[in-house]
């Protein structure tokens, strides 16, 4: 299913005045493709992602998955939470794994939250951990994993529920160039394989060789999509 962001505006209260973090953004991410969202710090990338994820209601505009309008300024917290659980996978800037759960349990948690037996996704969980290259560490807790391994577990966790939309916030910020490139490649590959519409925020264009499209954000607005060659390093 495609992800459509239509006329998204997000205004934060800022003391007595307000701060427009996202200003009338339109963006479509087709299913099975990855769009990279670039831009300097403070441009509003995370804010746009938060709206796309239903973590915060847009001040104006709608988020649509396939033909379903999922988030509007009036969507309730409970409804947003359910959409996120059933249709959206998220990878955060830091891995955000739960300290008391093993790598495999981080994935099983998703089934539990959906009211299914955790064991019912064990097999798929192991396949995913294998796909991201940490199958050997399935029974380790986050404290026993390296930063890169944790980020890979986080990617597997985002995909375990077969989400229609995958939202990724700066997955490479803690990794060196080579590992960052590998992680982006992993995400784009898995997104294609699982037909997920993927929006990937990054401030490091050099790791984006494998993405399908790139858009750039500046001062809360989207610039015209640049051809990929323009953002690739020479």
């Amino acid at each position: 299913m495609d992800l459509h962001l239509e006329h998204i505006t997000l205004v934060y209260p800022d003391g007595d005045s307000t701060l427009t973090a996202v200003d009338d953004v339109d963006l479509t991410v087709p299913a099975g493709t990855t769009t990279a969202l670039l831009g300097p710090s403070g441009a509003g990338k995370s804010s746009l992602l938060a709206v796309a994820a239903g973590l915060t209601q847009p001040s104006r505009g709608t988020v649509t998955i396939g033909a379903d309008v999922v988030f509007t300024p009036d969507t309730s917290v409970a409804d947003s939470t359910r959409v996120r659980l059933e249709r959206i996978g998220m990878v955060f800037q830091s891995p955000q794994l739960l300290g008391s759960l093993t790598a495999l349990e981080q994935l099983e948690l998703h089934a539990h939250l959906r009211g299914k037996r955790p064991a019912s996704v064990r097999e798929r969980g192991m396949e995913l951990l294998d796909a991201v290259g940490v199958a050997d560490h399935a029974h380790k807790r986050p404290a026993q994993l390296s930063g890169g391994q944790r980020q890979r577990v986080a990617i597997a966790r985002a995909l375990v529920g077969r989400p229609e939309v995958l939202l990724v916030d700066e997955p490479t910020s803690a990794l060196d160039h080579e590992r960052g490139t590998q992680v982006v490649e992993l995400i784009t590959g898995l997104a294609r394989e699982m037909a997920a519409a993927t929006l990937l925020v990054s401030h490091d264009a050099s790791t984006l060789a494998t993405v399908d499209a790139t858009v750039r954000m500046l001062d809360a607005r989207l610039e015209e999509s640049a051809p990929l060659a323009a953002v690739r390093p020479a």
Partner: protein
Amino acid sequence: MFVALRDLQHARGRFVLMSVVIVLITFLVTFLASLTAGLARESTSAVTDLPADHIAFSMPAEDDAPEFTASRVEADQWDAWADVEGVESADPLGVATTRAETDGTTASVTALGVDEGTNLVPGSDGEGDDGEAGDVEPGTVVLTPEAAGALDAQTGDIVTLGGTALTVAATVEADQSFSHTPVVWTSLDDWQDIGARGSATAGGGADPVATVVALTTTDDADLAAADDALGTTTVTTSDARSAVSSFAGENTSLTTMQAFLLVISALVVGAFFTVWTISRSGDIAVLKALGGSTGYLLRDALGQAAVLLVGGVAVGTGLSVAAATLLPDAVPVVVTTATTLVPAAGLILLGLVGAGVSVARITRIDPHAALAAR
């Protein structure tokens, strides 16, 4: 409780520490409750074990709260009580704590003066036929085992009660005491001679007196009307415990301590879960961002608190029961449902309230925070 149980195991140190606190508080509360019940029995069992449902006091001033040390009833009062409709029996009972002596031994006892042929003494059916252990006749005294032990006296021995020499008629199997002294039974005549309060002589007349009237009533007895007519104050046998001065003082202070402990435990549990919830607010934001509903997260956290509380309280209660059985008999503890399971249930309930107030902050945690690096 997918995450909650794993957190319990993962943060074992913290939870063990908290469990130990809960175990200790539970031990303290249930042991104190057992001790309160035990002390209450030592103070009042002579009253509560009476085969009577109400006790009529006659206080010097009408408005005085009933008290065994000040009450004084006269023969016409208990005779009149016996004639009240719905009153099946009205027996005079003299209560006086006094000194008892045998050859070489002295002990403090409470002498209960009873009419001949009454059933107020354990081991007597009140029919007046001779030969039952609990039959009290003038010139004799019936002992509880505790009094017999304290005085080192056996049947046939002479015991001097407040200057009056009496022969031990029997020792009855009854664990009764009053104001922490063992009970002995004498006839009402002898009890007046013992004159623990000088009642007979002070009264000046030949009228027999006693301390209270023990009543057995049916539901249709109009006790209030009879009180008004006879100048008495009638309370239930259970309420009559408050008329024992040692009970009133002990019970109030010990019950207050228990109430404080219950409140303290709720506060401690609340404080623990406040700190715990704050320390895992990052995890909660992530769980919400992953699609965990607020209701689910609240149930998860409360379930965790329940596991901790039920476990800690169960161990604490078990310890206190074990301690009560191991302690020497001299420590007056009475272990019943009311002294163990009731305070235990109170601790769990109040603990859950404390935890509930603390984990309620989960509702205010913004999943947006998961996007922030940490």
